[in-house]
Structures are given as C-alpha cells and as structure tokens.
C-alpha cells in the first residue's frame, strides 16, 4: 500500500516512516511543506495520505487545507490527518463531504503502533478513524441538553467506539463480547436514535457522527 506522508518535524517524520515501513507500507513520498504535499498527492496518486495539520511555509492549517483541496479534486481520496490538538471545527470540515475515507487523530495515537496502523488501513479502505477525544467532546456537549435518547451505558460505549470508526469485530474484541452482541447493540442504538439502518459500515459511522454533531 503506497503512502504519502507530510510532517515537518524531522524526528516525527522519520519515526512515522520507520513505523509504516515496519508494517509493510510503501512510502511513496515523505514531504515537509504544503506545496510539496499538494504536488505529491496530485502526481503520485497514493492509496492513503498521512498529513500533519500544521505545515510550513505558513505554519497555519496548511496541511488540512491541502488535504481538503486534494479531496475536492479527487473525491474519496483517503486522508488521515494528524494534529497536536483536535478541534470539532476541523472534524466537521473533514467529514462534510460525506465521502468517508477520513481519519482525524491526535499525534499521541502513534504511541500505540497497532491501533495507529489499524486506523491507517481503515482509512485507506474507505472507512473512518475519529479520535476518541473528538467523540467525547461531542458526547459531553450533548449530555447537557438531552440524555442520548435513553441509551444504556453499554450501548453508549458501543456507540462511542462505533463513532470512532471501529468495525463490529474490533468493537467486540475491545469490549470482550461477541460480534452478535455488538450487532444487537448497534441495531438498538439506531432504533433509539431514530437513524435509518444501514448495512454499509461507513455510512453507519457517518450517520452517527452527523447525529452527534447536530448539537
């Protein structure tokens, strides 16, 4: 699987390259700046891009803007955005096109290589990887005005994991329950939140995220 990586700090870029290579990814390009990233995305047509939000030369949200522009040019281009901080504002912009194949994670998540690589693969396959902190921000806001449609604590936990973009199998192994139990929980959740049921994993995640984001 071919990856384009954009990160301006040498140590982090180097570490990410090593980690991705260790998990059998092919590094198509590892770049430092926004313009380089834009060029690499257009010319190399990678399977997935891993992008730092803040990039030179402007040191603003240049990485995010490049990624969004590239996705406008090529809808559904898988992009995993990394940042030192997560903002719902950015999450909202990334999810806005509804095409999936989007990840938004804190840089801390690279500490857990297995989970991080899992997130990269999921995004490359058209799925979603939302940082748990984004989800908990969304949930804590909602908790104030209305209880989440009467979800049980168990269902709430399933929903949080689902909103992060995990598959039923991953949720099952995380919670140490069977996949059948997870499936039952998810169909309950969709019933209680009044969301249209969907078999497509990714549509399902986006529906939950959109529901949470209504504020």
């Amino acid at each position, binding site marked *: 699987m071919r990856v384009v990586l954009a990160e301006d700090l040498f140590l982090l870029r180097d570490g990410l390259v090593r980690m991705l290579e260790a998990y059998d990814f092919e590094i198509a390009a590892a770049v430092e700046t926004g313009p380089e990233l834009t060029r690499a995305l257009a010319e190399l047509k990678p399977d997935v891009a891993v992008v730092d939000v803040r990039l030179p030369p402007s040191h*603003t949200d240049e990485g995010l803007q490049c990624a969004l522009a590239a996705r406008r040019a090529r809808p559904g281009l898988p992009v995993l955005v990394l940042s*030192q901080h997560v*903002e719902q*504002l950015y999450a909202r912009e990334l999810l806005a096109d509804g095409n999936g194949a989007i990840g938004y994670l804190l840089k801390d998540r690279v500490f857990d290589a297995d989970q991080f690589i899992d997130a990269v693969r999921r995004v490359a396959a058209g799925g979603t990887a939302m940082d748990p902190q984004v989800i908990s921000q969304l949930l804590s806001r909602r908790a104030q005005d209305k209880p989440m449609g009467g979800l049980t604590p168990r269902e709430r936990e399933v929903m949080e994991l689902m909103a992060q973009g995990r598959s039923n199998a991953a949720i099952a192994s995380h919670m140490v329950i069977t996949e059948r139990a997870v499936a039952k929980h998810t169909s309950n959740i969709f019933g209680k939140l009044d969301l249209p049921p969907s078999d497509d994993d990714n549509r399902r995640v986006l529906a939950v995220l959109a529901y949470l984001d209504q504020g």
Partner: protein
Amino acid sequence: MNATRGRVRGALLAAGRGLLLSVASLAGSLTLFVLTVLSIAFILLGIGLVTTPWVLTTVRRHANQRRLLAITWSDVRIPVPYRPLPKDVRGGFTGQVERTTLMLKDPATWRDIQWLMVDMTAGYVVATLAAALMIYPVEGFVLAAGLWRVYTDDRYWYAFVPVDSQASGLAAAALGVALFAAGVLLSERLLRAHFVLARSVLAPTHEQELALRIDRLTETRHEAVDTAASELRRIERDLHDGAQARLVAMGMNLGTIEALIEKDPAQAKKLVAMARASSAEALTELRDLVQGIHPPVLAERGLGDAVRALALRMPIPSEVDVELDGRAEAPVESAAYFAVSEVLTNAAKHSGADRIWVDLNHVDGMLRISVTDNGKGGAATGKGSGLSGIERRLGTFDGIMAVSSPAGGPTMVTMEIPCELS
C-alpha cells in the same frame, strides 16, 4: 409643514433647556464660586482643609453634570480632565491635607473655577437669551390682545416699542413675531453656543490631554506587566509540576527498565507501559498548557474560527457570527480570544442561559465583539469579578468593555478594541 413644526418644537425645547441652564448657571455656579473662594481662603484658618475637598468635589459634580447635558442636549463632547485620586489616601486629618493638596495641584481644578466665573456671566447670558427669544414674544401677544389697556395712562416699553394703545400693542405683537422667528432660528444654536463656551474652558488643554494619556498608559502598562508576570509564573509552575515531573519519572522508569530487561522481562514490560502512560499524560498536560497560552486554532485560523471552535466546546448551544475580512495583530487576537473565552465561561457558569450569541465585526477601525445570553442577568462587574479582569486586559490595547445585565436578563457584554485588519 411638518419640518416647520419640528423646528418650532426644537426651538421651544431649547428655550426650556436654556431656562434651566440659566438657573443652574446663576444659582449653581455663583454659589459654588463663592463657596470655593471662601473655602480656599479659609485653608489658612484650617477650616478650609475640611471643606475644600468637599466643595471641589461638588464643583466637579456640577461641571460633570454640564458635560452630560452638553452631550445629550447639543451633542457637544467635553472630555473629563481630572486626575484620578490615588486609592491609598490616608484617613483622618493628614488624609484631608493630602486630598486638598492633590486637588489644588490638579490644573483641572483651576480651570473649573475659571469656568464657574465664565458660566455665571457669559454662560448665563447666552442661556437666558436662548430662553428669552421664545418667551418674551408671549408678552408682546398678550399686550396686543388687551393688556395694553392697563398702560393707557402710563406708557409701557416692550423692548423699544412704547405701548399705550391698540396700534402700539399690535406693533409690540409684530415685534414679538419677529423675535419668535429669530428664536426659532437661533434658540438651538444659542444653547449649543452655551455648551461650546463651556467646552472652551472645561476641556483639557493639549498638555493636560497628554498628561492624562501618560497616566493611562502608565496604569495599563503596570497592569500588562503584572498580568504577563503572573502568567509566566503560572506557566512555570505548570511545567514544573506537570510535564517536567513526568519526564523525570519516565527517565527513571527507563533506567530501571535498562537494569531489569534481562533479569526480569515481565517487570520491565510493565515499566515500559508505565513510561508510555507517563509520556501520554505529559503530552496532555502540555496540550492544555498550550491551549492556555496561545490556542493552536487561533494561530492556524485566526480569531473568527478560534471563537467558532470555542463555541463548539461550550455546554450551551452558541451561535457565532463573524464578519471580519482579515486578521488583527496577534496580541490583539489573543486578547480578544481570551476575553470572549472568559465571558463565555462566565455565561455558562452563572447566567443559567440556554442560548448564547457571539457577534464579531470590524467597523471604523474598531474590532467589536458582543456576547449575548438569554439568562437571568444580574452579572457582577465590580472589582474582583472575572469581567473586571477582562477590562484590565483589554485596557492594554485601549479596548473597552460594557456590560448590560438587568436582573431578569438578558446579559449583553460588548467589547471594542481599536485595531487594523490585514
């Protein structure tokens, strides 16, 4: 027709106001002038030390009253030039002496006294004229209507018209009409002239304005330096107790791991996990710290989006409306951001609101921010409240804040900072 009626009404209003002013000028200013002179003269006898601060404060109140009338009645702005009294004036007799000396040293005091003299003479005449032009014609009409009969034997002078018959009565009325017309044209201008006269004496001179500006700058600089110093202390403490301590723990763990890795791999693995947890916690702490120093969204996106991101984190649904075409300078953005953040936090904690609106725009070289909530109002603005802290911070940029929070709500906090966008 309507325009004429409006002018007449305006002139009548000006005449009424002129009448009030003439009373205030003659009675108020004359009395206060006499009191001031006596009080200052009696300083030699000691009594003056007690009375002077009181008298001068009353004079200031009297002058401020006129400043207020000037802006509300004739749109004439007269700046306030008084030096603020230091907060730590001692009590008792020494305090009185100190207060008297300070007040007498303030050049604004002497200008006040000058103004009292001008006000009770020229000011009085101008104000009276504004009133007389509208009131005196009434007498002319009354004379023409029949009052002239009283004066058939002994002629009565209405201005320069001798009244002793119907014909001369009508002449008086004609003069009255002319005066009334003049009054309609002039009363408002005369009233304004009265205030302009007051401004020429009361407004601070250029030198005084500079002195006041320097006082203000010194004050805000002190506050800015204090705030910056206490911020640095807070950051130092946070780093020292937080990230730094965690890194020490991590280093220690790594040392132990090095020693254990061959002897006791299981224990070493446990310590590795602990070291990783420490590094994650250190990162979280650093992230919170950075958020408090200069929020990353602010650096990346500017004030508008930073406030939007802030609103998204609020427990109360908040609407943000931004009309800014450009970015302000970084220090201004930062001050504005933290001010909004503080106001929003206050609203979430105390207002009991279920909705908040934030408006940001830039008009006439002013960044204007208003935060409105539909809560129960009664926000405290006194010393020590969060809102007064905001005022101090904005002061560094010559920014101001106004709070309107009647009991029962809604609360509206408005902030203005002069700045350019680029």
